[in-house]
């Protein structure tokens, strides 16, 4: 480790870092703007200036930029010297020439890095007397506000948006002091990761529009550590609340999962918490079909009564916590507990779990995905199903650049230099999908194939690598795999074989077990030699994997329950946080619900299932409750209530536990607290034993005190309720978690799972996170949040899985060959709207499109229809708008899975298509040619 001298003090620092990072890691405050721990250095803002001396005799020294200066043994620097300080002050003064000084009305005020740096450098007096430049702002869509006058031209926005996240519609325009960061024309920012601009911009140019409209200063937000419920990646978040409303979601740093960035589904989708569809009171359906509000105790009594009588079954939910699902399972018994997946998904999620658990390949966390030097994606459009993984893959393709950089001895933080060196050279990324995906622009090769061919391609690659079932592969090669693709398979094989850290990705979206198995075969064929092979199988929801573990492979599925119900075997059905109409077709769910005499539903938002219930219990949402979720990498993570449940909502586990107690079920007598349930579940289900380690329990104290949800400057605690009473109520004590609903306590050095907000003296912005890290950009001091249940190189810890029985529908994908007159339905999920909850977020409402059907031009032409026409799918399964897509595999009909009107469509089903005669075209709609490249057309 090199030793450097800063202002006369010797420090040991880490080799390969730059001086700025090293200073921050040492706890020395060195101001900066353009550097970002995840994006490296470019030396634009010149804010991180220090003086470097040639040797001990050198008394003058010269100014260098900390972020551009490697630390080397014996180097001598000064941060505190006048020369450096004056320079840094002059930089801030220069940055402020055109800055509007509108902090009082700026959404960044109070958490503004520019404010912090201004104070840090001591700039106070303004010398400039000229006029300020002003800019016109652009409309950038419903999510992000644009206020260009506040810009300090640090280039972070475009570096993040374009270089890091691959967005193409935001750029630096003009030159000199007229530089403008914006779009070619006003319009919605197209990147799925645009929201991070809010956190990346060090001042108030890009701000969260929902927050701007429903404004609260950072110091007035009450926050808690949380986990995104948008998909199965499990990004860590810090939602902020005031007045019982969720005001915004910020990233919570997790070195192994999301790092510094979220996707827009996660950031803006959580707004469903404020939806006007939120249920407030327990309700009982009366004879006339209307609901009567019930007192919560009465509701509980009714529930207990009904559950105590007759035969009870329960349907859990892959979007509800492990604990709530566990209690429901206890309530109804394992044999009567369906996990709440669709039938196909139930098979596939269990299979994904089994394949990962049994694989010798590493199940990578998201940060490890970034290290992959060759990637094969089979069938999964990760940008739309597990978005944060797509962002990680965009970094993985840069490993080629880092290799080239290493030859020239360039440090990895030399961002611009490395990009200039590598230009368009990337590590191999192969995508086989039913049609184009947003990652195609960084792919070496994209193959658009029907699901059966995707599986066959995987098998061929596995066989080429000397693994898998080579007979199946040969058979498939002859059948499903067109000759041209065989050559591609060889190229993919070669690239993977040549890699040191190959990664195979697949998922459940296509509805194909064969694809999942093929991916696992490729990975296992690669598990030899010195390679570190990775296998990542995506599942759809925040707790899909946890639910599969909890329910086990033998759990009944929806069809089984429906059959039992129809046979009169179920009297009372309890549904936990699940809109069943998204899981099975309408007729089947209608039949199920009609066959049960009592349907009790616990959920947070009104939906088709709550509408069909007899008794509805309003369940607290993720921001009002605690729970454990198991992410797609098998990471158990805990979310905590940000604020207390509003109205009569209760956490589902609270309802269920109370119900069990009311039923005098003695096994729950020892359970009092949330932690007790977690422990009981862990004890009961060995594969979930690790969940207790997801976060410290209720008794954790940070140096003797709790962890405050409110920052020290939280204000107006009395005034905020003054319209009700001027007496400030005693703050409710949190009896379930180590967090307090007050500003008393200590927010420092605690485990990462308990980090509610970041702030440090002098660092009011999110940049203060480095004060919580072991080193700038490194893991959190208190440890990384979450506990892995699937261990890397899974074979060490087999879960109690047994081979999953084949499911006819899912395995069907192996059957290849187009059937004349029929199209195979393939899901085309969308980041906005394909999942149940984010679609209800007011912020995203505008961005959720109606359902659609995608066909290749030839298929569309054959049917005599074009983009904008209506298509009738099957026998009145759906009528949807057509989008012609050049890239869609022939014979496949993509559908906007989860979007309005697609409820009856199931992956891989063969359906007929015809023009919908009574369809009204939307006015002014045309096929757009905004393609990413040749041959791809988006509509």
């Amino acid at each position, binding site marked *: 480790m090199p030793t450097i001298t800063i202002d006369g003090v010797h420090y040991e620092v880490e080799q390969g870092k730059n001086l700025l990072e090293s200073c921050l890691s040492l706890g020395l405050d060195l101001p900066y703007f353009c550097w970002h721990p995840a994006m490296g250095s470019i030396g634009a803002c010149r804010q991180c200036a220090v003086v470097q001396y040639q040797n001990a005799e050198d008394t003058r020294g010269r100014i260098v930029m900390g972020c551009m200066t490697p630390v080397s043994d014996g180097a001598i620097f000064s941060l505190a010297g006048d020369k450096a300080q004056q320079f840094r002050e002059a930089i801030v003064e220069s940055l402020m020439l055109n800055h509007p000084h509108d902090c009082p009305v700026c959404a960044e005020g109070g958490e503004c890095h520019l404010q912090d740096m201004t104070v840090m450098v001591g700039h106070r007096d303004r010398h400039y007397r000229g006029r300020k430049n002003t800019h016109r702002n652009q409309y950038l869509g419903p999510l992000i506000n644009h206020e260009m006058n506040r810009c300090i031209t640090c280039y972070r926005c475009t570096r993040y948006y374009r270089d890091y996240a691959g967005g193409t*519609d935001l750029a630096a*325009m003009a030159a000199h002091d007229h530089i403008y960061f914006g779009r070619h024309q006003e319009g*919605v920012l197209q*990147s799925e990761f645009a929201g991070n601009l809010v956190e990346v911009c060090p001042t108030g140019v890009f701000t969260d529009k929902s927050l701007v409209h429903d404004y609260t200063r950072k110091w007035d937000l009450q926050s808690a550590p949380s986990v995104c419920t948008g998909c199965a990646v499990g990004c860590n978040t810090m939602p902020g609340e005031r007045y019982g409303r969720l005001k915004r979601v910020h990233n919570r740093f997790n070195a192994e999962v999301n790092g510094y960035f979220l996707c827009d589904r996660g950031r803006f989708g959580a707004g469903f918490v404020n939806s006007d569809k939120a249920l407030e009171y327990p309700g009982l359906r009366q004879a006339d079909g209307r609901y009567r509000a019930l007192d919560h105790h009465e509701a509980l009594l009714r529930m207990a009564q009904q559950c105590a009588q007759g035969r009870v079954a329960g349907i859990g939910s892959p979007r509800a916590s492990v604990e709530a699902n566990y209690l429901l399972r206890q309530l109804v018994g394992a044999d009567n507990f369906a996990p709440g997946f669709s039938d196909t998904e139930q098979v596939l999620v269990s299979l994904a779990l089994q394949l990962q658990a049994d694989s010798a390949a590493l199940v990578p966390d998201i940060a490890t995905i970034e290290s992959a030097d060759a990637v094969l994606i089979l069938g999964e459009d990760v940008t739309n199903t597990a978005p944060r993984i797509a962002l990680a893959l965009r970094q993985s393709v840069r490993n080629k650049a880092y290799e080239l950089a290493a030859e020239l001895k360039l440090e990895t933080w030399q961002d611009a230099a490395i990009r200039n060196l590598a230009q*368009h050279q990337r590590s191999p990324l192969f995508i086989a999908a039913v049609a184009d995906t*947003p990652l195609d622009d960084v792919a070496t090769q994209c193959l658009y194939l029907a699901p059966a061919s995707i599986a066959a391609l995987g098998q061929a690659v596995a066989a080429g690598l000397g693994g898998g079932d080579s007979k199946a592969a040969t058979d498939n090669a002859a059948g499903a795999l067109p000759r041209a693709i065989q050559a591609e398979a060889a190229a993919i094989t070669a690239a993977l074989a040549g890699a040191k850290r190959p990664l195979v990705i697949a998922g459940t979206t296509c509805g194909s077990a064969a694809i999942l198995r093929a991916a696992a075969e490729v990975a296992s064929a690669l598990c030899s030699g010195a390679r570190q092979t990775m296998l990542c199988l995506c599942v759809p929801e925040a707790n899909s994997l946890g639910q599969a573990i909890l329910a086990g492979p033998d759990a009944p599925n929806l069809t089984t329950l429906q059959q039992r119900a129809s046979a009169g075997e179920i009297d009372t059905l309890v549904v936990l946080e699940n809109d069943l109409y998204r899981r099975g077709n309408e007729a089947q769910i209608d039949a199920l619900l009609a066959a049960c005499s009592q349907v009790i539903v616990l959920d947070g938002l009104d939906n088709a299932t709550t509408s069909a219930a007899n008794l509805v219990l309003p369940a607290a949402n993720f921001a009002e409750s605690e729970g454990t979720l198991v992410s797609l990498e098998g990471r158990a993570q805990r979310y905590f209530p940000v604020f207390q449940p509003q109205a009569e909502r209760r956490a589902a586990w609270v309802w269920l536990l109370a119900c069990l107690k009311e039923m005098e079920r003695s096994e729950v007598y020892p359970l009092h607290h949330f932690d007790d349930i977690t422990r009981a579940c862990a004890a009961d289900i060995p594969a979930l034993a690790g969940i207790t380690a997801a976060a410290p329990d209720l008794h954790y104290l940070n140096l003797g005190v709790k962890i405050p949800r409110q920052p020290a400057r939280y204000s107006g605690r009395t005034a905020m309720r003054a319209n009700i009473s001027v007496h400030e109520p005693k703050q409710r004590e949190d009896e379930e978690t180590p967090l307090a609903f007050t500003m008393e306590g200590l927010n420092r050095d605690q485990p990462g799972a308990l980090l509610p907000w970041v702030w440090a003296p002098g660092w009011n912005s999110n940049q203060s996170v480095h004060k919580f890290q072991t080193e700038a950009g490194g893991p959190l001091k208190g440890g990384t949040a979450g506990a892995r249940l699937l261990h890397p190189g899974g074979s060490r810890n087999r879960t109690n899985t047994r081979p999953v029985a084949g499911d006819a529908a899912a395995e069907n994908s192996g059957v290849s060959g187009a059937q004349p007159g029929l199209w195979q339905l393939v899901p085309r999920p969308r980041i906005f709207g394909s999942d149940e909850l984010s679609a209800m977020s007011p912020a995203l409402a505008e961005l959720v499109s109606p359902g659609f059907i995608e066909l290749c031009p030839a298929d569309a032409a054959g049917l005599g229809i074009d983009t904008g026409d209506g298509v009738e799918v099957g026998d009145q399964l759906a009528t949807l708008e057509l989008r012609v897509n050049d890239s869609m595999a022939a014979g496949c009909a993509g559908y906007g899975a989860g979007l309005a009107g697609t409820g009856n469509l199931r992956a891989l089903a063969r359906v007929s298509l015809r023009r919908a005669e009574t369809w009204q075209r939307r006015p002014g709609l045309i096929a757009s040619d*905004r393609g990413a490249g040749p041959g791809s057309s988006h509509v």
Partner: protein
Amino acid sequence: MSDRNSSATIPLLDDTETTLSAAEIAGIDAEIAHAPYRSAVAIDALKIVQAHRGWVSDESLRAIARHLHMSAAELDGIATFYNLIFRRPVGEKVILLCNSISCWIKGCEGLQQQITQQLGIGLGETTGDNRYTLLPVTCLGACDKAPVLMVGEDLHEDVDAQTLRQLFDNSGGGA
């Protein structure tokens, strides 16, 4: 670029959208032939289209971007960086008046005033008859002949009141 699955992002029919002419495409493709990737010829392409159309409108810019498989924003960032890519209409001829140091010493400010008087246009403006646009330009590398200006592609050296009268009289200008 990904379609953000929003109905709002589906562009509405825009009948001002333009396509590149065969000659423009030929010119651009000739440059592409020498380049490692298409977007590398962005500046050449902008210049080629500008040579044909006088300036680069939003529609032209988008047409070039499509041809180069790059985004309009990225191309606009490039176009707006360079001062000789015109993103607003200019007259038939552009007057580039050098206002750098040697020409300043030799009185380019007086020339500018005279042009304004004669043609009725200030810097950045175009005559009413659309014949001339007046722009300032960086040292034209003819300082020994200062003051100088260019009209179209022609350099005029040792310019004085007399030269300007000859150049622009009867131009029929006037704002």
